[in-house]
């Protein structure tokens, strides 16, 4: 037996008596769809993008983002001043229009550019269905907001080392809230109002966070601010350090369903109106508009993400 043990272990695999349920994957997807869009509330978009930026395929995007702010780190030029986005044109196709947006120093993390190089000058295309209320100006504003979010995310990424200097933050900065309106603020606490798209409805949430870390990092784009620069009516995103259930079950519990006293605010980013608009218009993404790219495989001349990736492979 002794001589055979290694062989037995290698070749005798213990398997369940039955296969997984046929609905295994669809059950998981249904579960995920029943929850709010994670990029808006249940996870910090900054951290989501941060992780994307770690991936080798994204390094060039990082480089572009850095170029966009290169030489001006934390300079007092206004965090967004390098970004330019203009209406490029409109083309009618069946039941929709294609809106092109020309940009400078504007990088958007999407399936179209996760493996390809971006140029400082980019054109982004959106298919907008005919009965959408979204105007071309709003599409341009949304693109600009996406680009600002990229810079904001990069700034957040750069701030992690600084955040991690506090041992309390290590491994405990697990989430955040995207785009909330400040309803009250003091040196140690803040109240916010959030409107979160959940399916076809908007959930309105009002919360007061009684703890702001004394060393809270405040910024707008790549510009550093102080807490005194945040005022009632401002739109902010923020990241928090968690404890208790907020930490141990961060992936399963919506942040707004957790005692706010277990969430200590460690970083606040002041959003521009464009970024706020980009978040607001997300409820239409996939319903009234989608990002596309010129291609030959679709009769319209434009492919969505799935078509693009299928074609590429």
């Amino acid at each position, binding site marked *: *037996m*002794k001589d055979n*043990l*290694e062989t*037995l*272990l*290698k070749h*005798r*695999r*213990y*398997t*369940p*008596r*039955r296969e*997984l*349920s046929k609905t*295994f*994957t*669809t*059950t*998981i*997807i249904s*579960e*995920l*769809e029943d929850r709010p*869009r*994670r*990029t808006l509330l*249940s*996870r*910090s978009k900054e*951290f*989501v993008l*941060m*992780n*994307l930026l*770690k*991936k*080798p*395929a*994204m390094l060039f995007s990082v480089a572009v983002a850095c170029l966009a702010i290169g030489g001006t780190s934390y300079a007092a030029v206004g965090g967004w001043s390098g970004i330019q986005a203009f209406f490029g044109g409109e083309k009618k196709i069946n039941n929709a229009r294609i809106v092109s947006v020309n940009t400078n120093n504007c990088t958007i*993390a*999407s*399936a179209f550019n*996760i*493996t390809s190089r971006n140029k400082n000058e980019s054109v982004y295309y959106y298919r907008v269905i005919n009965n959408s209320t979204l105007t071309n100006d709003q599409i341009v504003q949304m693109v600009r907001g996406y680009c600002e979010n990229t810079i904001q995310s990069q700034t957040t990424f750069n701030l992690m080392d600084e955040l991690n200097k506090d041992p309390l933050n290590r491994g405990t900065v*697990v989430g955040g809230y995207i785009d909330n309106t400040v309803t009250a603020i003091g040196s140690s606490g803040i109240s916010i109002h959030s409107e979160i798209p959940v399916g076809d409805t908007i959930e309105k949430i009002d919360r007061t966070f009684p703890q702001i870390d004394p060393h809270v990092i405040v910024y707008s784009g790549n510009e550093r601010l102080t807490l005194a620069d945040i005022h009632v009516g401002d739109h902010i995103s923020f990241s928090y350090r968690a404890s208790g259930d907020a930490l141990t079950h*961060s*992936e*399963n519990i919506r942040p707004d369903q957790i005692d706010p006293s277990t969430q200590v605010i460690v970083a606040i980013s002041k959003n521009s109106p464009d970024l706020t608009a980009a978040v607001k218009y997300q409820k239409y993404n996939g319903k009234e508009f989608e990002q596309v790219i010129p291609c030959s495989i679709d009769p319209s001349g434009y492919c969505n*993400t*799935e078509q693009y*990736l*299928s074609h590429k*492979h």
Partner: protein
Amino acid sequence: MRNKDESELIALSINGDHAAYGILVDRYKNAIFYHSFAIVHDEDAAEDIAQETFITAYYKLGRYNAEYKLSTWLFKIATNKALDSLKKHRHEIATDDTLFETIVSQHPGPHQTSTHQELYDAIRRLAPRYQAAISLYYWQGLDYEEISKALEVPVGSVKGWLHRAKTILRKELS
């Protein structure tokens, strides 16, 4: 879509593309199910753990370290959930003799079946972390380094656990 590069599927999933995540789930669901089963020895519990693993992973994708293989990271989540499940429900898991039927043997003779049953029985008596290490090393094909990441212990501990597990098994089966 089915043939997409894993990093692209992860990126799409992070951006909320559930279809992309479904493909990742399909790729790894059986491995995670089998590994969970190797620790908890109960199909229903293993399926629950596998499901929770993928839901947890989805919400943690933003923190996924791309230096790991995705499978290693999933095994790590599943192992933690399986060990937690054992701690919580240890008293509820009754011995089920029919589990011996789960031993995979293409054409086992009477002696082989007996040997396999003994082996399986002995494995079930091992400490859960040893069972996890055996499952990952022998049945899921991970190397020491990957198991070290999945179980969050030094490589030396992995080697030690496997060595001790085999020592115990040899003793029990001698």
